């Protein structure tokens, strides 16, 4: 990212102002059935300013980074804020000051691989899959790396800097039986540059073998039976339950708009065994998949305890909602691109581990399902949620049975969380997806396995 001294523009600020310089760099490489379909480098950089006047926000951004560009964009954001402020009937100043600061760089210390070496890595992985798994109808491999680099100055704070890289390899395998098609996907990687997440293609072979075995079982799979049932949601699904189903309803902007959580504060929203935290940057002694230290409003990021022993303890705030709810902001104002304004976003949301083992949990179910991998998820203001399921098994008399075909689960998060009767003693994070809320942004979802009741789509 181009080096710019943001401090020299502070004299142009009028009222509360954020000035952010940001560059997102991406690499995308894909192989479809052995063909190198895409090999792309992408860079998007620029400057944005956001200004608050009497509670009205003005925002402007430009890819230009010259002295004049930066001055003009501050000026345009001020004009935008004035346009609204002049027409606003009620005035709401952001009167409380916050002073987040610091530098965080998660770059690799290892020598960087060339684009050619990245392509060769993917090709070797593709060759291995082609040669070993002859029953496949098709295979797709996709590498995405993202470096998000930000420099932020607010009218209240010093300059903060962050470089957050992530890298993922996505694998999709398909097969056929009697003319019907079956597919399975998985992703590998996480926080860090490619070199920190991957060393040799062979390191992924056992996980790909496991994926292939699941696909072969899915090929012989049955339709799930539609209706309410007892399930074990494995860690990926528990993570998405925490984020999608409950987390969104307690984002303070959605609470303000009328989400069902408006009347739940300090009330029972889950079984006593359930606690849920949105971690800022460290959890269980390790760095989270999406570490946030200072958010894009200049707030020092701290953990937010959302549910403690089944009781709702806190919403997630930005500067504005914190003022309105008389709460302290804990660093949820985040933007994806230089041209995006910060919104209230989760960071690393997890249900905390319990005390059971997964095998104990499976043994405890007479007739139900063990659901392992989601495809996508959506939530509602009512806390009703839906997750697509692409990998799961039947449980009969405490034992895993046949694989099931793709299905969907749904429920009301508060009811499902109240129905939680067992929680496993481990935790796994997933972070390969993006959360969509006007803008897409990386998030971390963590969970143990949880036993609960949900509705299953099927036949």
């Amino acid at each position, binding site marked *: 990212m*181009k080096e710019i001294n943001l401090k020299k523009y502070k004299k142009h600020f009028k009222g509360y102002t954020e000035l952010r310089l940001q560059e997102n760099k991406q690499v995308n490489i894909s192989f*479809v*059935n052995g063909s*190198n379909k895409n*090999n*792309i*480098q992408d*860079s*998007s*950089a620029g400057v944005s300013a956001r200004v608050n006047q009497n509670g*009205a926000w*003005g925002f*402007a*951004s*430009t*890819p230009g980074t010259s002295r004049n560009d930066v001055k003009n964009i501050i000026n345009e954001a001020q004009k*935008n804020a004035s*346009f*609204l402020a002049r*027409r*606003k009937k009620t005035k709401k100043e952001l009167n409380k000051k916050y002073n987040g600061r610091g530098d965080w760089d998660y770059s690799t210390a290892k020598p960087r691989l060339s684009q*050619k070496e990245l392509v060769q890595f993917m*090709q070797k992985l593709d060759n291995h899959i082609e040669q070993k798994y002859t029953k496949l*109808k*098709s295979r797709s491999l996709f590498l995405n790396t993202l470096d998000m680099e930000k420099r932020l100055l607010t009218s209240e704070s010093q300059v903060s800097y962050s470089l957050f890289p992530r890298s993922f390899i996505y694998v999709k395998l*398909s097969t056929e039986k009697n003319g*019907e*098609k*079956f*597919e399975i996907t998985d992703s590998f990687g996480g926080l860090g540059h490619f070199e920190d997440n991957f060393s040799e293609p062979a390191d992924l072979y056992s996980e790909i073998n496991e994926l292939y075995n699941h696909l072969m079982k899915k090929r012989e799979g049955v339709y799930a039976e*539609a*209706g*309410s049932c007892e399930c074990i949601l494995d860690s990926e699904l528990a993570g998405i339950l925490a984020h999608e189903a409950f987390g969104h309803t307690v984002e303070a*902007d959605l609470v*303000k*708009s*009328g989400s*069902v959580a*408006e009347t739940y504060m300090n009330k029972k929203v889950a079984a006593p065994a359930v606690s849920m935290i949105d971690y800022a940057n460290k959890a269980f002694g390790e760095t989270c998949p999406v570490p946030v230290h200072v958010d894009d409003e200049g707030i020092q990021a701290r953990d937010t305890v959302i549910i403690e022993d089944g009781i709702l303890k806190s919403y997630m705030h930005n500067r504005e909602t914190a003022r309105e709810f008389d709460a302290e902001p804990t660093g949820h104002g985040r933007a994806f691109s230089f*041209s995006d*304004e910060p919104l209230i976003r989760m960071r690393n949301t997890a249900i905390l581990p319990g005390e059971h083992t997964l095998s104990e949990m499976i043994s405890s179910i007479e007739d139900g399902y063990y659901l392992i991998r989601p*495809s*996508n998820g*959506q939530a*509602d*203001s*009512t806390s*009703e949620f*839906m997750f*697509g399921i692409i990998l799961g098994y039947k449980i009969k008399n405490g034992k895993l049975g046949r694989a099931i*075909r*793709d*299905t*969907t689960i*749904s*429920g*009301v998060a508060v009811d499902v969380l109240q129905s939680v009767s067992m929680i496993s003693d481990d935790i796994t994070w997933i972070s390969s997806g993006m959360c969509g809320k006007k803008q897409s942004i990386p998030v971390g979802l963590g969970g143990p396995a949880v036993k609960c009741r949900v*509705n*299953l*789509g099927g036949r």
Partner: protein
Amino acid sequence: MQNSNDLKSYLELLSKAGADKAQCTLNKRRLFEINVESDEISLLRTTYNQELNLNVIRNQARGNININQITDSAVKKAARQAVRIAESSQPDEAHDISPGPLNKKFEKGPDREDRNKMYELLAEFLHQVQQKYPLINLEQVNFRFYNNNRQLSNTNNVYLSEQKSFYTFSTMFMAKKGDQTSSFNHTRFSSLNLQEGLLKKGSIAQLLAQSEKQIKTKSIPEKFTGDIIITPDCLSDFINMYINISLRDNPLIEGTSMFADQLEQKAADSKFTLYSRPVDPDTAGGYFITGDGFLSENAVIFKNGVLKRFLLSQYGANKTGREMSNNRGGAYVVEPGEMTRNKIIKTVDRGLLVARFSGGSPNQNGDFSGIAKNSFYIEKGQIKYPVAETMISGNLKNIFNNIGAISNKRINFGDDILPWILTTGITISGGN
């Protein structure tokens, strides 16, 4: 402002760096947006951006680079890097650029936004919603003006330019009474002008009124197989799912499309005719140029249930040996039927009016399941009550092959024009 000469100089840089073939695309975008959050106008946002894509083929291998810092030195560096990326790629005979010579320019939409009018219309909308729909909370409204300029040039002597501007309006809302909340719903429209009130556009008024009735919902009595009437807002999702898993590059290249051998064959009910009209003069948005540098055209995708074309890019066509399409979907128009919406409801013995689908991505066989959101239970031809936690499961092929009726009235979203569709044989289950 870069012009055709700039693109020409970029192509020269790429050729000098070693490209056998090269294509450059320059996008310049200006966005003006007024935002509503929780019933209040909260943010005014203007963004400027530019993206230069350098697409290189060398020894039949392709490399792509996108940059938005477009200075002479940055472009020179990017041109060298684009060739290096191509050199790092595996060769594929299917890579190519669009053929020339061709030189065309297109323009659509107003030059600039009328921001005072946008503000006035939005303020009027907020006031009207407050007056007419007192239970509605507007979670978010984005009222935008896009001004996009796109130029594409390549070493086959192609130069295409598209100047396009239009307004879009999208809103997400819910109804609330005491501590009870409806599901959120959302809708949108796009427009080339600002002639009438926002509440009159698309399906906004209908959906706001429906949400006020959806605060108290009820579970369906039991699991059953029945009919569903898919509303225009929801139909857009089903059409996109159907097309994405069967007619585009990836499913056809991977060999997973369920329609791989069904061109010119029946793939939907004979009542179903679907057009894609990206170059209609009345379509807001749309596209005159495809992403890979061909002139776009309007197309019929299904004619009386017969599949008329795949939506393949040049690469997809070369890879599969099929015909390329100058239409890549979007701006969907479904031919209307003959029955009124109310008459269609009267034909349903047992089923749902499905206004929003929240579901998992359908698999390659077209199987889908998900929640029928903002939906109503229908029994013996009458809408009975809004439903809670109701799951629908079925197959997309069946949805489009078992069409019982299509409404005579359609909703014009400014790009899509869609009716209500009745389809049968859907598994409907509740949480009980």
